């Protein structure tokens, strides 16, 4: 079991939903996917690299033929996979504090969901529906979501300076270089091993 690789934590959760409620959730996700400003809290949390919600209708579990038996279920299931930086507690606390309305909107259709506040009950629920990861890979284990965003800003700014650097006079270059340093100075955090936290 390995939920952690470098600075990333893999979370898996599955919750049952009554089939008629999944259509409401699908509509919510459709709106969320097409109205980008509604994703701003998710983006601003800034420690989620990738996350996805997957609704599996009760009669749509993959069936590859005998000897597999078809599933006979009464509930649809909502799967949640997240790749986030930091600890489980930090993640759930931040979700509860910042995204409680959004989370409630997504999970209130799941059976016995207690709401994302107060956080203690919410954590109990997540613990019950979470299952562990057996193998976890990341191409950049020592970089957080913010490291990646910052690195691309540095790359873009560096490329812009480099395009004209050879044709400038030394004084022009010095001015351009100072502007470059001002632009990138807040995006230069070092990557490396994650700090030990509890």
């Amino acid at each position: 079991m390995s939920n952690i690789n470098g600075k990333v934590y893999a979370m898996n959760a599955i919750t049952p939903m009554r089939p008629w409620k999944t259509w409401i959730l699908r509509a919510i996700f459709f709106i969320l996917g097409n109205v980008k400003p509604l994703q701003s809290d998710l983006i601003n949390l800034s420690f989620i690299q990738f996350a996805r919600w997957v609704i599996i209708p009760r009669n749509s579990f993959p069936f590859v033929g005998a000897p597999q038996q078809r599933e006979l279920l009464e509930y649809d299931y909502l799967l949640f996979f997240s790749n986030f930086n930091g600890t489980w507690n930090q993640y759930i606390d931040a979700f509860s504090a910042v995204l409680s309305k959004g989370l409630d909107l997504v999970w209130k259709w799941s059976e016995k969901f207690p709401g994302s506040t107060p956080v203690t009950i919410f954590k109990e629920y997540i613990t019950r529906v979470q299952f562990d990861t057996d193998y976890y890979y990341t191409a950049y284990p020592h970089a957080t979501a913010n490291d990646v965003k910052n690195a691309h800003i540095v790359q873009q700014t560096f490329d812009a300076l480099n395009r004209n650097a050879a044709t400038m006079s030394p004084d022009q270059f010095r001015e351009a270089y100072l502007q470059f340093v001002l632009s990138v100075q807040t995006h230069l955090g070092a990557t490396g091993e994650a700090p030990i936290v509890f």
Partner: protein
Amino acid sequence: MPNQNGSVYGLTLLCPIINDHRASPSHDLQIRAYLATLPTGPDSPFAIAPHTHLARLVVMDDVVFVGAPAREEHLKSKYLVFEANIDCPPHAIGTTGLDTYLAGLAMAAPQQLDAIWSHCTGYPGTANLQAFLHYMKACQIETTFFFAATNDKSVTQTLKALQTQRAVADFIATHQGKDPAELQRDFLAFSQKLIAAPTPKPAVPAPQRPMQTGGRNE
């Protein structure tokens, strides 16, 4: 299409694990035992095959009973969940991009893939590539909502950008207060060297910087 976010594709597979009560250890346990030994660094099959940002393999034993009054129910099979966030540029959206990725995986790490998926019902093996692709796609589940913090950069671009970020930080630190002509000369040499440098391999930890000591907060 919910599987796609910008140039990143969210792949979700649920592959039924062979349910054979005579097998000892059981097939799900054999998968878990193998995954525990599978490298996660540069020797990982997902590092050898290109285009994987993050991926996970999970044995899902059953659905969860959340307590009364909800009804308790169980799956007839255990499932191997494969969740991957992969490069799939807009011009390759759809099955072409997915086929290319899965075929690349099958060709780069056939032994590892077969060692894992041979415990799944109906798995044909990587030797028959068309059957392999057909099987994997038969096990695919459509993502309902997919979020990617950075959705317009490939794995290669990200690895290169992280390399640039680190090199630029070092360059700035060692070139404070330099004469303009010397600064420009050094920058041009630095940028040439950086651009020519090979892209770092995936899943390789960044070298540790020596600890700076003596700061005002110590």
